[in-house]
């Protein structure tokens, strides 16, 4: 293994997967540096979970290859499994067991010795605020508690690379915050995180690099800032009191996108004073009444919409 290799935690080239005639992944290339957070961003059905399942050796790809910490996922699956931890979308806990028993099970399967295992279990119960419910069956846990236990179980073996498939989907704001903090702590400790999300804000906050997946194809890849630069400038949003004003404004500003329901239009702009002044002049000249105005710099929503641009992707911004 060369030094170059060891700095790349995850490397995939040309991953393909189909179920019957349905192509789920159509040639995915990606590279994740050690100790960073990589977010795979995309709407439902884009192929995010399939990517995680392939990289974590759960299912096999139809084509392409991938290495995790230098281990080939097909030829050395046990080498891969020894360094990864996976927390999927569906809780991977034993519902008939208590939280403590679930964690102890992981400690046993990671072959920690008795004292070490018990210490690790106690530490994780504390870290994820599960001490009080440790002796209760998991079937009685709330969704947030189950997800925290799930992540705690993943951490028992101190994995160097962690796959998190939509870790905050359906979580209450507090559990979401705990999850984010945990991810930051893990990365500070040198762990590599591969995360999938439909939430642009989450990717923006956590990830060093983001790849946008749409219909099985990576449509963009880069740092959050690089992705934002992909869309030229931001826009100015104008709010109107009624449809008539909206109509007149829309005729004045040709390249603007309008939203008839919200009675707003978005005029492309670099957000500078000059363009703002020009816009106000146009409004004056046309005697158009504006009830509210906001200047918006590009965010990942703009990136996403401009990259994917079909109706399904609207879901991405909802949470």
């Amino acid at each position: 293994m060369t030094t170059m290799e060891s700095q790349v935690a995850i490397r995939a080239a040309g991953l393909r997967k189909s179920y019957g005639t349905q192509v789920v992944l159509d040639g995915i290339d990606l590279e994740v540096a050690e100790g960073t957070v990589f977010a795979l961003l995309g709407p439902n059905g884009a192929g995010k979970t399939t990517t995680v399942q392939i990289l974590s050796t759960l299912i096999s790809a139809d084509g392409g290859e991938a290495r995790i910490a230098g281990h080939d996922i097909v030829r050395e699956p046990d080498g891969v499994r020894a360094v990864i931890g996976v927390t999927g979308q569906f809780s991977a806990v034993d519902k008939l067991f208590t939280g403590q028993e679930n964690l102890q099970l992981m400690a046993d399967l990671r072959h920690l010795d008795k004292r070490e295992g018990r210490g690790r279990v106690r530490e994780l119960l504390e870290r994820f605020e599960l001490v009080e419910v440790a002796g209760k069956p998991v079937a009685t846990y709330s969704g947030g508690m189950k997800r925290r236990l799930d992540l705690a179980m993943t951490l028992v073996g101190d994995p160097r690379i962690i796959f998190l498939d939509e870790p905050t989907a359906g979580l209450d704001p507090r559990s979401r915050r705990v999850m984010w903090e945990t991810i930051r702590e893990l990365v500070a400790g040198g762990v590599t995180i591969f995360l999938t999300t439909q939430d642009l804000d989450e990717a923006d906050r956590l990830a060093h690099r983001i790849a946008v997946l749409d219909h099985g194809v990576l449509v963009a890849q880069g740092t959050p800032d690089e992705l934002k630069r992909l869309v030229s400038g931001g826009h100015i949003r104008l709010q109107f009191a009624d449809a008539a004003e909206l109509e007149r404004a829309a005729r004045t500003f040709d390249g603007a996108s309008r939203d008839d329901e919200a009675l707003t239009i978005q005029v492309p702009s670099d957000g500078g004073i000059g363009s703002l002044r020009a816009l106000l002049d146009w409004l004056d000249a046309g005697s158009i009444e504006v009830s509210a105005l906001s200047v918006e710099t590009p965010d990942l929503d703009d990136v996403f919409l401009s990259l994917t641009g079909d109706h399904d992707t609207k879901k991405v911004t909802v949470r």
Partner: protein
Amino acid sequence: MITSPLVLADSTTMLRRNLRRMRRYPSLTFFIAGMPVVFLLLFVYVFGGALGAGLGHVSGGRAEYIAYIVPGMLLITVAGAAQGTAISMAMDMTEGIIARFRTMDIGRTSVLIGHVIGSVIQTMLALAIVMTVAVLIGFRPTTGPAEWIAAAGLLALAALAVSWLSIALGMVPKDVETASNLPMFLILLPFLSSGFVPTDSMPDGLSWFAENQPFTPVIETVRGLLLGTSIGNSGLLAVGWCIGLSIVGYVWARRLYERRSAG
């Protein structure tokens, strides 16, 4: 990497997991023992008088029929446990924790071995319950402890074969409902054997099937070990069938487990 030296440790961990799950659901073990107990009482008290007379021995009657059908009932217990085993395997496969196990560096077969050994232990418990009821209603083994232990050993081997087959059956369908129906044929098989009536009282074709299907030599051997009837080559056949079916079940279950994706 074919075999990890830790397969044994991981299988033990998985067995502990299954035994703990069993303790959380004790009703399943009683359910498994319940059906053969009901059959036993039904056959002895409802059909026993008539069927016993048909055995063609001098004394005949209900008392002799108890002795005749207990080995068959023990095998009904072994076969009936298949349903519980298939259900618990199918339930496990629908849970996310199996997906977690598959992404961990643990012996690939340890999940299966945990289920199989757990199921054998469960079957042996059910057999103990059925045997206790049999003794209570008048069954009296006529042989010594060495033969009883041999009978228990053979029943455990039969349970092993049935367990491997039933965890495979539990993984064939995607849903638990279908998985619970698939092993039904296993419960029927002991009835089409020498367990309840002598095979020569059956029509030709059926009689041929009954004499050559795997449950018959096992029943004949258990009968010989408990009551001193002649065993002949049944012992060898019984062990051969059990080992053969265990291997078939093991290979089948492994393939299904490897192939079946979690999502």
